[in-house]
């Protein structure tokens, strides 16, 4: 129990620091903005109550916003991601599949399932984020281009991060 809590707190801090100090400073170009911090919400256990998913998403989003000087932007997108997570899990798994599983991680669910699950949620997150940033439907082309280019890059970086931090099997 405490083990999970400490691991989650550490994951929150590490992802926040990596996002703010590394990925927000890397220039991938005009259209690509990877937001790898969403991995925290993606990896929360299956039995996390929905209201707690929302609160965690909000706290992480606001923390990123404070560093980026964009109040509410990342928070809104991450809360949306947290809200959609149970539905995406619902359409990509059967109830019997996840009964004995702990968290939606690569080790427990397999890379292929995780990639689809993560990509769907990252697409939703990016779409909301870029749309709120532009705040107009006129720039729809730009918003879609940013979303469709950023989401696969984010997914790739997230999978790399997972494999870097993967616990060594005893």
């Amino acid at each position, binding site marked *: 129990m405490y083990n999970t809590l400490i691991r989650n707190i550490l994951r929150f801090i590490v992802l926040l620091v990596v996002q703010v100090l590394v990925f927000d400073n890397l220039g991938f170009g005009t259209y690509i903005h990877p937001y790898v911090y969403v991995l925290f919400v993606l990896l929360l256990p299956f039995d996390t109550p929905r209201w707690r998913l929302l609160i965690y998403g909000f706290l992480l989003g606001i923390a990123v916003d404070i*560093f980026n000087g*964009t109040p509410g932007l990342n928070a809104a997108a991450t809360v949306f991601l947290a809200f959609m997570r149970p539905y995406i899990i619902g359409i990509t798994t059967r109830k019997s599949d996840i009964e004995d599983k702990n968290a939606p991680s690569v080790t427990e669910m397999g890379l292929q399932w995780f990639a689809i699950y993560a990509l769907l949620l990252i697409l939703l997150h990016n779409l909301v984020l870029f749309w709120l940033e532009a705040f107009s439907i006129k720039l729809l082309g*730009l918003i879609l281009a940013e979303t469709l280019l950023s989401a696969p890059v984010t997914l790739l970086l997230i999978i790399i991060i997972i494999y870097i931090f993967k616990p060594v099997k005893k």
Partner: protein
Amino acid sequence: MYNLFIFIRKYNAVILFILLEVLCIVMIVQSLPYQSRKMANVSNSITGGVHKTTSNWHDYLHLKSENEALSEHNALLLKRLGCEEVEADAEYYDDIFTYIPARVVNNNIYEMNNYIVIDKGSIDGIEPDMGVICDKGVVGKVVNVSKHYASVMSMLNSYSIISCRFVDNQYVANVVWDNKNYRYGLVKDIPSHIVIKAGDTLVTSGFSNSFPADVMVGTIAEKGDADENMFSTAKLKFSTNFSTLRHVYVVKNNFKSEIDSLCITH
């Protein structure tokens, strides 16, 4: 009442979701006009320290190229000092503006509205609306000040408008940014009868209190078409390279309050 309780229990996640999203949207909308970035003040003082530490590392890694740039700028200044011919109003002119050197501790160029954080704040005499320039040209305007840091709206921002003048023919136009590329901006409101060509130089007009006149802004890269109101636009290459920005100067107008009070009485 009991039904309401059942309803809230059943849909607690949806209700919380809507509440949080409304809260976020309110925060976003409140922060939209750049002057009221209240949160920036708080976050500047918290995150400025973090950004400063990373910036220190970054500075160390770029010492060599930075030294070269500074010595180049030094040489340029020395050359100017050496010039015997000083215009008649030059001395008075220098009294109007004071330049406060500052270091960039955080810089965005890929967002739609980019802001720069510098390591000088209210105790160094920085105030909102002051202009920020670097040795290559105009950088932006101060929008928010905390005790030790200030956030600067760079020209790479959809709210940024800089009043400019063509060196060749003295016509005035406005420079904005079209969210596309950090090297290029857009010159708007050019009277369509004036002839512009690629390579024409634009400098600040000096009509705003934030910038002295004749600070380099950029050169015309591509001529655009005229619109129905007989104004044309052109693509501008910024003289400032925003991606390598390290040292900037904040421009303080010593007579700003005096000029402002005149404007109010009008």
